[in-house]
């Protein structure tokens, strides 16, 4: 009896331990160590700080496209290889709207609405019919979509470079000795805000609950009245919206708009998603930020890794994560059932 009583007694030390427990997991320790490293580095070197900030802005973009991939993967266990091209196409739509005289932010939100409808239609018309067949079939359909979108965009707008006004201007702020462009801050904020908006939708609305249920336990969800098919289509729509945000935020950092806009970003997003664990939305975001900062710092300090090696480097990250810890930073190890 005595032991039971002591176990029930809430001691102050025990409380503290319970609060700290999630922070003591290896992943959290790793992230804390990384954050400390970045902060210390930024305080000691201005170049380091500059690269870190720029890396965070790029990483946020990788993260949002990675999140789009993860949303779809969680729901249907497939990767949408056309995610980047869909984002590119919606960016062209924004370009067109601006050409027609809309202001940037009006075009921005109109484009997000377009992306939502586009993503939903893709799921309904192309993915649903093959969904239950095989992974290979779905992958090939998304590959077909990749080529199709490339062709349609080239058809309508041509392959030559287009210019689009940056929503943030070219202004640069100086903080201490560190130059931070308004562009980077804007990119980071817009991306993070859209991710937070999505998180709120998933966490606090009935629709979000339904979508989570449909993704995690489709059969049980159907039994309690969730329209699983509809939820999956909405999920593709939301993923396309996130992709559109990524596309719109990639464009100003490249200064130009061309059909290959999102192809490198897609690879970074793959690496980010796998780094985060492919099933974890938070992991995708953390993975994206980590990859963005990492690529910039490596590019700055490791002279062997020049601009050409950025993509192979992402491939390398992808490979290493899959070999060492296939479940990524935040994923759970997969259990294979016979």
């Amino acid at each position, binding site marked *: 009896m005595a032991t039971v009583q002591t176990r029930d007694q809430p001691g102050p030390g025990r409380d503290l331990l319970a609060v700290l427990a999630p922070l003591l997991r290896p992943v959290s320790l790793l992230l804390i160590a990384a954050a400390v490293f970045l902060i210390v580095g930024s305080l000691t070197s201005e170049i380091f700080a500059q690269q870190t900030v720029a890396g965070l802005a790029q990483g946020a973009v990788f993260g949002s496209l990675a999140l789009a991939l993860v949303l779809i*993967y969680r729901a249907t*266990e*497939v*990767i949408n*290889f056309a995610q980047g091209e869909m984002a590119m196409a919606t960016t062209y739509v924004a370009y067109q709207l601006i050409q027609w005289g809309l202001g940037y932010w009006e075009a921005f939100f109109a484009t997000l609405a377009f992306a939502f409808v586009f993503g939903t239609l893709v799921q309904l018309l*192309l993915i649903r*019919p*093959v969904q239950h*067949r095989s*992974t*290979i*079939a779905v*992958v*090939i*359909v998304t*590959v*077909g*979509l*990749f*080529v*199709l*979108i*490339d*062709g*349609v*965009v*080239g*058809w309508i707008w041509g*392959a030559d470079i287009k210019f689009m006004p940056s929503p943030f201007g070219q202004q640069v702020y100086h903080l201490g000795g560190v130059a931070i462009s308004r562009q980077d801050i804007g990119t980071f904020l817009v991306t993070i805000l859209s991710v937070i908006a999505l998180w709120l939708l998933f966490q606090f609305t009935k629709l979000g609950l339904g979508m989570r249920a449909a993704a995690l336990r489709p059969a049980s969800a159907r039994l309690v009245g969730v329209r699983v098919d509809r939820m999956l289509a909405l999920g593709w729509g939301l993923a396309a919206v996130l992709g559109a945000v990524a596309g719109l935020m990639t464009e100003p950092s490249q200064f130009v708009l061309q059909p290959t806009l999102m*192809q*490198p970003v897609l*690879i970074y997003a*793959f*690496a980010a998603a*796998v780094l985060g664990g492919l099933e974890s939305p938070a992991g995708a975001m953390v993975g994206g930020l980590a990859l963005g900062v990492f690529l910039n710092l490596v590019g700055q300090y490791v002279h062997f890794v*020049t601009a*050409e*090696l*950025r*993509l*192979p480097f*992402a*491939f390398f990250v*992808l*490979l290493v994560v*899959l*070999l060492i810890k*296939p479940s990524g930073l935040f994923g759970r190890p997969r259990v*294979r059932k*016979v």
Partner: protein
Amino acid sequence: MSRPSVPALVAAAVVAVVVAVLPFALSGYHQGLAALVGIYFIAIIGLNILTGYSGQISIGHGAFMAVGGYTTAIMSRDHHTNLVLTMLMAFAICFALGFVLGLPALRFSGVYLALVTFAFAVSVPQIVLKFSTFLGGSGGVQTTQTVSHVWLFAVTWAAAAILFVLAWLILRGRTGRAFRAIRDSEVAATSSGVELPIYKTLAFGISAAYAGVAGSLYVLATNGFAQPNEFGVILSLQLLVGAAVAGLGSLWGVIVGAVFIGLLPTVSSDVPVIGSEHGQDVVFGLIVIIVILLIPTGFAGLLARLTRARAGA
């Protein structure tokens, strides 16, 4: 699968005769085109061995073609090696590379493998740009020998015939059975005594080797130039499109897939609306989606269904 059926033999004989007669009937330009079809034929057989028979998807076979192509170009540039020898070398190097890449592929399947191979396809042209002194950068590497259309046509189709028979021999026996068992269920295959690591990496190696030979010939078909933008992502995607149109898991259908991706650009260039480069992409994309949605077994499956329907009627 154990013994070729009579119609299959007849079909093979017809194809062989057509191929043998073609050079006399065609202009140099068309011989080049026919050779291109042969090149895709080889590459798609390779991809089909991997994806169609052993169930491992690859969106990176263009990269193996690049490795094969650069092998030929560099050996020719530096040592003036006999071109056929360089093809054998491309076969060997790509086999080894495919085998090595197949090792990590053991740990992941399905979408993960698709991701890795896709990233591989994107990375290879970048690596060419990085090591530009050896690999020629964006300007590419040129072979010192150039070949005539007839030579290219003859060698391509001879290689295609040899590799086709080789694939058929591999797939009809114990190895092919192991591949198909793995494709249908890895767990079941393991419990029936199929050594997964050996056969999965073997499939990767063979498949990459085929792509390597195709890449080697591809460089010769583009006037001996190996250039990074010739081996972009789109090439990898086209191969997958070709394999899907042909029908995954069928060797006979491959010729249709090869004709499709080899000739569509040329045929459609005369058609007004879809004639542009982008128009072709639209057609490519649409057709592969339609094929997967409506005839999931591809051309080969369609043919089988038609024959069966006639036999039933």
